[in-house]
């Protein structure tokens, strides 16, 4: 194994971690595993792709790159707008599907099956609207820069890690230092008591959908930036996301991020040691092992 495995693992892990945070938040508040979360990652990437392309056309088609990065000003603007659109999409899915099921008091398995259905529908809609061909935010070639110790990374890759760190720290502060964060933790622990404390659980649920989908969008754009944009990109990330969410402990944001990095490093190590075809197997092995050995994860509370 070369030291480059570490860099590759951290880059993949930062994307997995961001996606896992969305899963862990929705699971801890809504009490079901949302298998449609991967599609928020894909839709987020495609929203940003479409907006960036539209802005590029409006700007005359030739947008210069920002500093050392492979993209111009259109992508950051598109990312902000796409986060809003992805959050809106999550709210629409909740209003049309999960909300009515919650009101009926549907069993968890019904919600999980509904999320499978939503996942299929959302993925097929992407193929219908954008086709199944891979797309790219930028076709510019980037040269990986030496980081020392035999490791290299492109500016785009380093940016994705930086963005992930900033978002995780920001989200951690939101959960621990703000009123809405405390409300989310309260609803997560005991929804009935939270309502007796004056918290409107519906508002908290909306916030959780928006936060989770927003982070999924960022993860999708980052993944699209350093790899490519495909309709199945969210589906392919789903197993590592769940492995990270469960390994980190349901409800723990730092746990999800740390576990994302662990899963990312395990994947890149497996690729280096056994070959690329074993990448997916690693997340599965971690998922099964943690469920058997420590179901509450690294930082989760015992239910």
């Amino acid at each position: 194994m070369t030291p480059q495995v570490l860099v590759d693992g951290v880059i993949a892990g930062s994307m997995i971690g961001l996606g896992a945070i969305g899963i862990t938040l929705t699971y801890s508040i809504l009490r079901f595993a949302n298998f449609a979360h991967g599609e928020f990652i894909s839709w987020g990437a495609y929203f940003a792709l479409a907006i960036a392309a539209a802005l590029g056309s409006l700007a005359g088609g030739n947008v210069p790159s920002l500093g050392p990065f492979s993209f111009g000003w259109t992508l950051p603007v598109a990312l902000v707008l796409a986060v809003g659109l992805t959050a809106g999409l999550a709210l629409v899915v909740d209003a049309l599907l999960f909300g009515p099921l919650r009101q009926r008091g549907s069993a968890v398995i019904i919600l999980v099956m509904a999320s499978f259905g939503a996942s299929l529908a959302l993925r097929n809609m992407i193929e219908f609207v954008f086709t199944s061909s891979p797309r790219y935010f930028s076709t510019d070639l980037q040269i990986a820069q030496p980081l020392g110790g035999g490791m290299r990374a492109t500016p785009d890759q380093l940016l994705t890690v930086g963005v992930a760190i900033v978002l995780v720290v920001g989200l951690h502060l939101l959960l621990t230092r703000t009123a809405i964060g405390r409300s989310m933790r309260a609803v997560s622990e005991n929804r009935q008591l939270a309502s007796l404390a004056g918290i409107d659980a519906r508002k908290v649920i909306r916030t959780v959908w928006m936060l989770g989908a927003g982070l999924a969008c960022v993860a999708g754009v980052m993944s699209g930036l350093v790899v490519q944009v495909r309709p199945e990109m969210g589906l392919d990330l789903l197993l590592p996301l769940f492995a990270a969410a469960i390994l980190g402990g349901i409800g723990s944001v730092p746990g999800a991020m740390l576990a994302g990095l662990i899963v990312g490093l395990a994947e890149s190590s497996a690729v280096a040691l056994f070959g690329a075809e074993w990448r997916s197997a690693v997340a599965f092995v971690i998922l099964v092992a943690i469920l058997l050995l420590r179901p509450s994860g690294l930082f989760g509370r015992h239910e």
Partner: protein
Amino acid sequence: MTSSPDAPTVLSAHGLFSGYERDLPIVRGVDLAVRQGEFLLLLGPNGAGKSTLVKTIAGLVPVHSGTIDLQGADLTSTHAHERLRRGLAFVPQTENVFTTLSIHENLLVAAQILPRAERSRRIGALYQMFPDLERLKALRAGQLSGGQRQMLAVARALIVEPAVLILDEPSAGLAPKVVSEVFARLREINATGVTTVLVEQNVKAALAIADRAIVLVEGQVRLEGVARELAQGPELGALFLGAQGRRREARA
């Protein structure tokens, strides 16, 4: 605070039927009027519907028919979180604090419905009332003893200066000495003007601190009177023993 018989009604229920399943009411036609400043005790044998009644008033159990009014406003179809904003605070019997949050965060969560400028003033006032909580404020609520948890739960409910405070068996699972402390504290809180409704199994001790008591049997009000008089009269014991006898017959 002994409430005057002329004091206005602050909380009332009329013809209340409620329960978790539509065709199986647990509370069956309860009429209730709680006067301003009163300390009302809800008694009854196990399974009488006391907890269901107070949970219905708090908005946790569906109302089948009838109405609930607080300070003249109809609460019947409002959500539980809105009832606190209207001045009705409820302390459940168990799971009544957020165990993963610190004591201070428990109070901050409840204070969120207050205007920003009010929050620290109210939390400061509660820390004065419960100095132990201030001393331990950084501690997670899950690390507190049973008595401390009850005090935190009561403090959390009081933070909005409610018109009515309802408590569901705060003595459950506590040592007798701690129960006396909790009851003494509830009496002090009532003396500040907070109308108090207490559900309790600890009949003798609870009658000693209440103004008035209502006895529920099989979801209906069977007896109502001044607490002191009920404590001395024979009706209360007869109702409890009668209910136990009926349950034995039903099992036989």
